């Protein structure tokens, strides 16, 4: 029987689900092996009977918790999709402000109506079986992981830093250009796409499991990047993981 898959989202930009839609023909091929029972972004109809749940977005409100727990209880396998879901992502930038302040900023006096709390990744609320990192996710990685699940194996996700892929791509290291980069501590899997496209690594795939943060920070400082610059960069996506930095 075909495994049933479903997509859900919480606080996020839906870019990850769009990445899935952007698989185009490949998606149609993959779909021949699975049955999509819920994918609000592209289809009408929904069923509570699913094997694999792909969940995008962070948990940012108490009431989201009930929904994600319900999804968890129905899914045999839960995959967190994208930085908001895996590490909290940009949503965590607000965690460094007082809720009173950011509510007031955006909603004025009506701010008090809004239930919201520090944004957090799914794994802080429910058990997550696999994580597809990135902001947005890499569509070929998504395809590969789905195929690996269909073939019955735990997905392979790199545990080394982005520098590895950056070297494979043949880029000039940002540090050699006097620029900053988080590739030294960020989990690979994106092919160093941001560096390749002229930017630097922002850390969207989370910190590599054995990353040497002290060394990385020292390297950034030695290369002339002050505390504030480093902190801002670490708070772009990694606010939840390395909040005190």
């Amino acid at each position, binding site marked *: 029987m075909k495994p049933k898959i479903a997509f859900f989202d919480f606080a996020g930009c839906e870019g990850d689900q769009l990445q899935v839609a952007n698989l185009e023909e*490949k998606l149609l*091929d*993959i779909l*021949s*092996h699975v049955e999509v029972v819920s994918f609000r972004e592209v289809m009408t109809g929904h069923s509570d009977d699913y094997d694999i749940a792909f969940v995008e977005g962070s948990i940012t409100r108490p009431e989201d918790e009930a929904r994600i727990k319900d999804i968890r209880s129905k899914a045999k396998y839960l995959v967190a999709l994208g930085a908001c879901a895996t590490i909290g992502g940009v949503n965590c930038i607000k965690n460094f402000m007082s809720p009173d302040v950011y509510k007031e900023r955006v909603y004025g006096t009506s701010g008090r109506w809004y239930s919201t709390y520090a944004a957090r990744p799914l794994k802080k609320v429910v058990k997550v079986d696999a994580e597809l990192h990135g902001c947005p996710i890499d569509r070929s990685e998504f*395809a*590969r992981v789905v*195929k690996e699940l*269909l*073939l019955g194996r735990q997905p*392979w996700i790199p*545990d*080394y*830093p982005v*520098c*590895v892929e950056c*070297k*494979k*791509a*043949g880029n*000039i*290291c940002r*540090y*050699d*250009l006097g620029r900053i980069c988080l*590739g*030294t*501590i960020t989990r690979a899997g994106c092919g160093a796409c941001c560096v390749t496209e002229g930017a630097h690594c922002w850390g969207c795939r989370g910190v590599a*499991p*054995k*990353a*040497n943060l002290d*060394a*990385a920070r*020292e*390297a950034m400082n*030695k*290369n002339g990047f002050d505390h504030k610059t480093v902190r801002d960069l670490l708070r772009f996506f990694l606010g939840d993981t390395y909040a005190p930095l």
Partner: protein
Amino acid sequence: MTAYTVYLEQLHAMLAAWSKEHQVYVPTAVEGGYFDFKPWREGVEIAFDYDLAYNTLKRYFLPPKEDLVVFDLAAKTAEMVFDAPKQLLFGVHPYDIRGINQLDQIMETGAPDQYYLHRRDATVVFGLTPMRVAETAFWSSMGAGEVDRGFDLFWTKTGPSTFLVEVGSMRGEKMLLAAGELTPASAGAREAARKAHLKIMEMGRSNALNFDWKQVPRLLDKCWNSPLWQKKAELCLACGSCNLVCPTCYCFDIREEADELLQKGVRFREWDGCMLTSFALVAGEHNFRAKALERYRHRYMRKGKYIYDRYGELGCIGCGRCVRACTTNIANPREVFNTLWEASQHED
């Protein structure tokens, strides 16, 4: 060695002719004042005076990712795939040719690596005498300043528009003469080339190993327990950059991926590095080199001793790429070897 004189004005037509059969790569200036090999075509400026190719040339023989076998998931059958495009590397420095020669040796030994050999065979290498030395390089003191094999032609710029071209293989000579007869090099031209070579070797000495490179294996023999490893390794990011940029590092991982219909698949290899934390990690979470110190030491032992023990050459040719690649400034073989040497002198 047979040698000819070639004028800059002749080169363009040659490149155009070679391009018909080969993808030609040449050193060019890239971002940030660095140089790298890029595909040649009309209008590409060749940096004859480049100091170092930012990326290692091993990627032309051992690509970052390379398919090994394709298989049929239903029938459970497999077939081999070889991809070896005809290519020409124009302007490879002697130390890099040394790196290629070492890879040749490693890949030919034991079970010959046919993937590598196919690519190697399909690649024409034209050497070039360097005219500048990269800040981080120390090849001249590693015995890697000259080569006598591993190239099809070897070019030395002997004047503003003149090259002395030495022949390294019949294939090279044929390609050189394809467009027509050339003047055999005069004794004076050979002398000019010799001088150019001496000059660059001299320039390279400003950044050198403080002792004879042949002592390195013996030195490392005594240094297993040196406190240096731990001190340096504390700053190691385990980013593998030093491995991946190294012309003589060749380790790889093998993985595979099925197509979207789950009918066919491909098994490929991809660059790996001994500095990565899970390089020696096996199922069940046992890691044979769990500590940064162990990984860090292993790399220097490979570069300075293990390769030597097996093949009679150092695993480091002194190109200095790792020196530049290491963000935390700890991957400098010259500095490590010098420091260990210094310390060993005090011991006796």
